[in-house]
């Protein structure tokens, strides 16, 4: 830390997933911030932000739940750090809407019986790492560069859309995840599906939709030569990691050994599909690994698609 410069400190809204199915995102976020000596203090008694279901059918409820959380966050000093892309989107959307719409703001303030904290800066951990902590400092802090690791950065929907809400990066061609990867010494691959939807919350009601959309994402990452995928959202992680085996079962390799035998390896039009497992990492897991945090502290045991063989192969374990 440069003398005279204040240590960065954030209040922290983990959201429901990070306390359950996305627990490794929470664990690794805390580990990373500790390694970088950046303060992180959880907002006491935060509520569910309502995620997609609440705004899908009741915008006023969704805005009120988020406004309540923003006012709870006021109790803790520092800008509000959010890791989940969906929570981040809902909290920012609430501030954006309520600043623009006086009438809605009044309704929400009646619902939560108090003022909404519209000026509490809400920040996704990507922007905290890349802009506030800073890429060059991040690079300097690396103890174990992720050399030779080819990573497909997956942005998904809500980190950048609609542009006036998250204000995170270009809404059609962002680069913040790739920038961070480069600082960590990894190799970001160029690929086509970094912003295509994974099916998000249809995972409960319409898993078939998730399998179809997520299959296209995994295919595209394999085609680009990625060893793994990096995400910044527990929903994306769930769809791409937890359902990977099901996706393979549903969209597995076409049995084309016949063509392979007849035409030889170069001409295999219907060649067996590349079926490699693609471990799906949270940004914080990769970053913490590069900072020298022991892999045992990053929640890898909770992941379904085992990342350890890949990490061993790249001598990162």
């Amino acid at each position, binding site marked *: 830390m440069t003398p005279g410069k204040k240590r960065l400190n954030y209040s922290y809204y983990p959201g*429901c*997933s990070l*306390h*359950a*199915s*996305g*627990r490794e995102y929470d664990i690794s976020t805390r580990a990373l911030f500790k390694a970088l000596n950046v303060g992180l203090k959880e907002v006491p*008694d935060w*509520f*569910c932000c*309502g*995620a*997609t*279901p*609440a*705004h*899908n*059918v*009741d*915008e*006023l*409820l969704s805005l*009120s*739940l988020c406004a*309540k959380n923003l006012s709870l966050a006021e109790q803790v000093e520092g800008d509000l750090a959010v890791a989940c892309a969906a929570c981040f989107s809902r909290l920012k959307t609430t501030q954006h*809407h309520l600043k623009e*719409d006086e009438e809605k703001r009044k*309704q929400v303030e*009646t*619902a*939560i*019986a108090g003022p909404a904290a519209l000026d509490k800066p809400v920040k996704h951990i990507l922007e905290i790492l890349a802009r506030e902590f800073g890429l060059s400092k991040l690079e300097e802090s690396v103890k174990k560069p992720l050399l030779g690791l080819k990573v497909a950065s997956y942005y998904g*929907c*809500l980190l950048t*859309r*609609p*542009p006036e809400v998250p204000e995170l990066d270009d*809404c*059609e061609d962002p680069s913040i995840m790739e920038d961070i990867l480069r600082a960590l010494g990894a190799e970001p691959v160029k690929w086509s599906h970094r912003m*295509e*939807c994974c*099916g*998000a*919350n*249809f995972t*409960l*009601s*319409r*898993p078939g*939709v998730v399998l179809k*959309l997520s299959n296209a994402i995994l295919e595209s990452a394999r085609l680009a030569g990625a060893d793994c995928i990096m995400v910044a959202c527990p929903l994306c992680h769930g769809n791409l990691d*937890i359902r990977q085996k099901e996706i393979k079962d549903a969209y597995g390799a076409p049995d084309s050994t016949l063509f392979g035998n007849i035409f030889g390896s170069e001409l295999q039009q219907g060649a067996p599909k590349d079926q490699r497992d693609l471990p799906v990492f949270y940004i914080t897991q990769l970053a913490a690994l590069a900072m020298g945090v022991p892999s045992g502290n990053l929640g890898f*045991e*909770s*992941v*379904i698609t085992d990342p350890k063989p890949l990490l061993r192969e790249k001598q990162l374990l």
Partner: protein
Amino acid sequence: MKNKLMHLSNETMNVGFVKKVEALSGSSVRRCFQCGKCSAGCPMSAFMEHPPNRIVRLLQLGQGQRVLAGRSIWYCASCETCTTRCPNKVDLAGIMDALRKLSWDADGPSKESYVQLANRLFIENIRTYGRQYELRLGAAFNMKSGQFLKDLMLGPKLISKGKLKMFHSKNKNIGEIEAIFKRIEEMRKKGEAL
């Protein structure tokens, strides 16, 4: 339905419905000039009988019932691609939210009851626990949708990986959440909110 001849008259055009959609979403439907950019980028349009641009067109023609009768609105993933790309600043994702709310309020002529069921359980969980209780969400969904075997193999795996918690503690200030639900219901009863 989509190829049926449509007769437009003052009787068939439900302008009041469209006004409600515009009020709820804060977005005009009249601004749309049917370029189709929203539908071109929509990841879910393949699952919809009316892709996003046609939904706006139907609204322009006062055909709200046609929109609600289909499953399109329940197959929108709220990905915001349409809103981001529309050259006329039509907030289609917001319009989708408004349409779902109106369908929900009418207890849905929608055919997409699984999505509604999942939403309903999710919101119930917030009211009861303050936070999501994913195990209960999954279990309740499977019970109520009659899909007892769905994701059966995934469940134990997720529990053993620590991804689904067996027990859940309520938020300490759960009363405040209940108060928010109550106040919103009150406001709606008094006509102070849509």
